[in-house]
């Protein structure tokens, strides 16, 4: 009886839900809507929450980070979790922590979640759950946004509202939309016989299932190699096909390329252990299944010319004509590991959310400010925003987009709430110090090299300056509008870059003399190095001497000493400076003064002169005024 009642209630609730949706009940409003409670969605939620904004996160699953609950299939994350650096500097340590999100809560550091250098994906799922719950982020689970459209309204922040519809036809209205859905739609290639191909999403991860089999893997990314790595030891052999050559991340500095941890197959390939790598366009491929269930590779070209009614025997295989066709042996399995793309399907055409071009077509088109090119107020964050720095920097990965997400939040704070980009004002004497400090420890500059830059805005008379951290350098031109800070007196841009010609798929990155050591060769640095687009030196010297011997004081004296903040130093340090020839030691002449008082004055004068400057008997040149 009780059971029946329960069922009734559930039915009622469901019925009520659908009714409300159908009747077009008033949509729920939030200033900010975030689609997706993955790492970037939660990261954005954190900043909005801290700023006290009205926001909501929609997550179709019952828990955050649903992608990580499934992927990577073999559960090993390739983002490093370096627990020890020998430093206590929390900012610096983030440089080597690729999994944590940014927060003030020290409990939410990933090293507390896994001891592994390459952690298990389950740890990430646990971490994201904790991140959402410990920080009390407002995530609405089990809500799949199925449609997004615009509602024009001149009162709205951006001239329109975003109307979101979920699977229950509930509508939500938002002023600003943050798309944090990542890329989760598997890339599929269609060719004759592609129905025989297993997807990475569903392929068995038990190596035993592959024992004694011959496997063809389509794709050459980390997922393909990860799959190969898993079954390497039990298969007859593995072949891998993809259009492009393999790109090794240690040669390209790009963490999305093949990581050394997955490259076991390269080893066996180069050490002649049956496995093979092939280059070819998957679009030209065709697979035919023979009677024994073996899969044969052929070319679409042959298939198109054949008699359709005939059986498998009539199909020409390349090896019929070509003696040494590489994939002549039939395969037991073909696995597709071609990566993912952005889900464009839920966006109404009016949003103009277009796919990128060329190798960025898996990402939506956005500006360097992460705003959609087609719709104002729609920001793409997280992995889906990687088109900004695809194959360059780390914007497609947690350790990169945690910073770009913060940058997006800062842009929004300025645009909608009049909160200018956070900045610190320093006295000009701290110019080099503030740069060195950041270059030493900043993690955002370090991870998002070439994308985020620190900006130094000189105030009037250059006695003070403002320091802005991690601004997207792609929109440098719009700095004043985007940050609410003024730059009338020039600015420095501090950014990290790799040497231009150092890395690349074909380059020898271990060549002799790859490091430079001296200042004048700094520009040739191959490794990640700071680049400052304008540099001004502030020397320090004896202000006391200058105060009395020059009409104008050098700038550092005007700023420090004259404001009674000079450095006095110890006797020992002064001694060092004298040794280096930087400071004159006037105490040395003291021995003259220490002479017994009864010594003849004239002889003392003489000595003094002799000591001071050797006098040459050339009178013309010494102007007469000295006799004064």
């Amino acid at each position: 009886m009780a059971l029946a009642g329960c069922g009734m209630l559930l039915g009622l609730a469901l019925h009520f839900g659908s009714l409300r949706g159908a009747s077009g009940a008033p949509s729920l409003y939030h200033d900010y809507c975030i689609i997706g409670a993955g790492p970037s969605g939660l990261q954005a939620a954190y900043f909005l929450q801290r700023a006290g904004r009205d926001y909501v996160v929609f997550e179709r699953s019952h828990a955050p980070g649903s992608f990580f609950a499934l992927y990577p299939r073999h559960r090993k994350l390739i983002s490093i979790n370096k627990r020890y650096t020998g430093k206590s500097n929390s900012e610096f340590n983030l440089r080597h922590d690729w999994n944590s999100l940014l927060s003030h809560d020290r409990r939410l550091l990933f090293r507390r979640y896994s001891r592994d250098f390459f952690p298990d994906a389950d740890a990430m799922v646990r971490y994201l759950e904790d991140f959402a719950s410990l920080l009390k982020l407002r995530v609405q689970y089990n809500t799949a946004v199925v449609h997004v459209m615009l509602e024009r309204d001149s009162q709205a922040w951006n001239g329109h509202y975003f109307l979101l519809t979920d699977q229950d036809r509930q509508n939500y209205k938002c002023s600003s939309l943050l798309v944090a859905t990542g890329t989760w739609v598997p890339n599929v290639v269609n060719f004759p016989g592609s129905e025989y191909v297993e997807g990475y999403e569903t392929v068995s991860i038990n190596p035993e299932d592959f024992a004694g089999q011959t496997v063809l893997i389509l794709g050459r990314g980390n997922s393909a190699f990860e799959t190969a790595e898993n079954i390497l030891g039990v298969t007859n052999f593995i072949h891998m096909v993809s259009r492009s050559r393999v790109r090794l991340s240690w040669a390209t500095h790009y963490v999305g390329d093949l990581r050394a941890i997955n490259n076991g197959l390269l080893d066996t390939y180069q050490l002649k252990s049956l496995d093979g790598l092939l280059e070819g366009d998957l679009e030209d491929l065709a697979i035919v299944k023979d009677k024994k269930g073996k899969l044969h590779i052929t070319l679409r070209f042959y298939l198109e010319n054949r008699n359709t009614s005939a059986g498998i025997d009539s199909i020409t295989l390349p090896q019929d004509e070509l003696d040494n066709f590489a994939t002549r042996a039939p395969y037991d399995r073909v696995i597709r590991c071609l990566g993912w793309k952005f889900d464009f399907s839920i966006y109404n055409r009016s949003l103009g959310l277009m796919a990128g071009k060329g190798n960025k077509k898996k990402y939506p088109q956005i500006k360097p400010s992460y705003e959609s090119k087609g719709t104002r107020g729609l920001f793409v964050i997280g992995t889906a925003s990687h088109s900004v720095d695809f194959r360059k920097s780390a914007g497609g990965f947690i350790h990169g987009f945690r910073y770009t997400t913060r940058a997006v939040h800062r842009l929004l704070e300025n645009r909608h709430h009049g909160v200018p980009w956070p900045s610190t004002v320093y006295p000009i004497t701290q110019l080099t110090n503030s740069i060195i400090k950041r270059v030493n420890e900043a993690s955002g500059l370090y991870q998002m090299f070439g994308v985020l830059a620190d900006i130094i805005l000189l105030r009037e008379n250059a006695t003070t300056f403002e320091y802005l951290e991690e601004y997207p350098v792609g929109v440098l031109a719009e700095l004043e509008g985007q940050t609410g800070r003024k730059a009338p007196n020039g600015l420095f841009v501090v950014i990290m870059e790799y040497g231009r010609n150092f890395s690349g798929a074909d380059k020898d990155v271990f060549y002799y003399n790859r490091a430079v050591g001296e200042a004048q060769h700094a520009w040739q640095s191959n490794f990640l190095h700071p680049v400052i687009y304008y540099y001004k030196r502030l020397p320090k010297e004896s202000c006391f001497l200058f105060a009395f011997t020059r009409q104008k004081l050098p700038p550092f004296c005007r700023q420090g000493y004259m404001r009674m903040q000079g450095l006095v130093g110890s006797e020992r340090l002064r001694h060092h400076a004298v040794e280096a020839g930087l400071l004159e030691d006037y105490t040395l002449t003291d021995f003259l003064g220490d002479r017994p008082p009864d010594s003849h004055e004239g002889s003392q004068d003489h000595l003094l002169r002799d000591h001071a400057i050797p006098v040459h008997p050339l009178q013309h040149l010494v102007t007469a005024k000295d006799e004064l």
Partner: protein
Amino acid sequence: MSARKDRWVFSFFFLLFCASSIRMQGSARLLQELSPQEYFSSLQAGRASLAYFSHNVSPGAQPFLEQIENSAEALQDYGISVVKVNCPKEDVSRYCGEENALRKAYLFRGNMLIREFPTDALFDVDSIVANVLFALLFNEVKYVETLADLQNIENALKGRSNMVFAYVPATGTAEHRAVMEAAFVYGTVHQFVLTTEATLLKDTGNDESDVLSARLLFCHCQQATDLAQPCRRTAMGQTLTMLNIHRHLKLMGAPLVTEVAEDPEKVSTVHLQLGLPLVFILSQKETYEADRRTAEFVAWQLLGKAGVALLSRDLVDLNILLRSNVALKTPDEGEPVKYLVLEDTDEVITLVEDKNKVEQIQEDEEENEEDEDEKENNNQDVQDDQVVEAVSRDKKRELPLEQILVLTEETFHSALLETARTVVLFYASWEAVSLAVLRSYTEVADHLKGTRGILLSRVNCWDWPGVCTKENVTQFPTMKIYEKGGRSVMYNGMWGTEELTSFIMLNQVSCPLRLATIDEAEGYLRGEFPPELSSYHHTSLLGVFSTATSEAREAFEEAGNLLSGHVMMGMYFEDDALALSRKYAVSPPALLLARSRGQSVEGIALSKESVQDMVQIIRYELLDVFPEITVQNLPRYLQLRKPFLIFFSDGDLGQMESKEMLKLAKERPQQAFVACWLNLKKTPVGRGVLKAYFATMPSLPVLIWVNLHAGGHVFKFPSELSITEMNILSWLEKLKAGLEIPSSTLSEEDWKPPLPAYDFLQMMEMAVPEPPLRTSHRHRDVPQQHPPESSGGDTGVQEEPPQDSKAEKVGSPGRDLRGTAPRLAAREKQGKRHSEL
């Protein structure tokens, strides 16, 4: 700078390349092919032509014909046409018929035959041009074989014109051609004399080892008056090329000494235009004659290396030290003129020649490169910042930091709760100033050892950036004192041990300290109250307020907050305040100032009541009447922006001087200058000040008047006068009236970066590989095809910079990892060869 020059030269070469490539296209047409009749009828009077007669081209004559074709273009620049005369088969006339004619070339002027050349004398373009010009310029270029011939010519020229004497090892060489080409241009101005006899060169006093190479000497015969003496000679240092000769002659033609009467920054002479420095001898009316002689003497020494100008200071208003006697202007644009005090003409010459030496080193690319590297390394071994260098030299020493508590992000807040006052030094361990201050801080810890209620601690912001950001640390280092209750004060003074200690000490008591009884107030003025500070020497300030003057009291309290730690301030406003004010003859609100332990108490009436005014009054009153200037206290007196009257004393003040100076200072409390003294024993840098004022150390003690804020003139009190109030006052009167001449004037120069900045953009530009066409042409074409007309300009003459090698120099990374240098050098050479192939 040199980079800019290179770029300039490069574009110049590029122009040349364009010009020459156009010429090359046209060269086919420059060689005329005519029949004998056409040729002889085309000859114009006065026009020279080089003709070659041929029936048909015999294979043996082919290379010669090519050379003659190539030289057609070069010769055309000198108005000489080159003609190939095709003899008809049956022709047996004078030139066509002769058997040997076919192995000869004929030079005609008009229709007169000047010379026949055997074809083997015309082996390449250089030899053709050299020989043809040699024949044509028979009068302009005398060929001599013996010393007697040379002397005869020289004697004949004395008083009339100058002579250019050139030695070439053989005729028909490139050097020979260069001399002839120069003679073509300058032959009417100077007499050219050529020899191939090396002995002649030896006899001219050039007994250097490399006599075998070609040389050129300019003989100044025009000014020679003494017939018995040989003419003065100036040898050309560079190799004999058209450009170098042209440049040398241009320099020889310039006046020996240029007299200028304008700002050296604006002066430009042929020397500067040719990339040579210009030396100014600074003269004045009184010493004009001597200076002129000096200038001429120097000019002769520097002839061909630098220009010399005589600058009359009386005519130009120069803001430079009176002692300066020489100025040096380099051709580098934007580099300011350097003013120097030199003792000797030798110094002037080494000044210039050293510079040349440096340039020469840069010219000889390969062998000397390593030396140069060393030089660079040496520079880089020493940081240009005193503090950074000193700290880095001291880095191996471990600091005695045991007494200073290390705080972390975790322990910071709890530590603040433990002691009444926690002093925290926020610093960055990578920063030099922080480390220097840390050293002083350990000394502070020594001083304060055992003081109760004070905990000294430090936070390394490199380790704990979070807490530093939270505590608003925007500078390194920052010192803050946290009171248990939560209040904190930030230190903003000198980073000396004494100042830091005093700040920490004074912060122990509240500021201003409220005194409750009249006894306390009296004790306070005597320095006995509060007991915490009784052992500590300081000046005390007491504000006396009546109950009616609460506004002034509030301002005083506010001022106390601002001055906390820097000034000892007390406050008394009980009912019996009047008794106190009566005792010291002030009416409240008033300040009582007790210097040196209440020996004397000064009363100061308070009229202004704003906080800022109050702070200013207190700061002003704390200044001494006749202070000893030290490094630490100078800024306070500089802020008054008044002239300084400084008594430099080697040791303590003499009683007499002390008395007189004090009188001078005291009797004019509102006077317009700061009277002070400086103990050279305590402040040895004072010697540096004196050395800057006078070239030599004056005898001590010495009294100096210096107006730092207007004019920067330095005056020295006459040492024969005794230091008395009267003498000083009358001297000051004279100064005011402008009757005294300043000993020196302080430089008003703007501060520029001490070292040139690395122009990375320029380096990158240079390292970009050039299109191979351009470089190869540049090297081949420049020496040969430079048209003499265009070299008449001043800018066209520069040494060829080894541009490629420069580019490679910056282009090769990591050359500086010491220890691997030899290997690296080998690599580099290899690279160079490679690029040459």
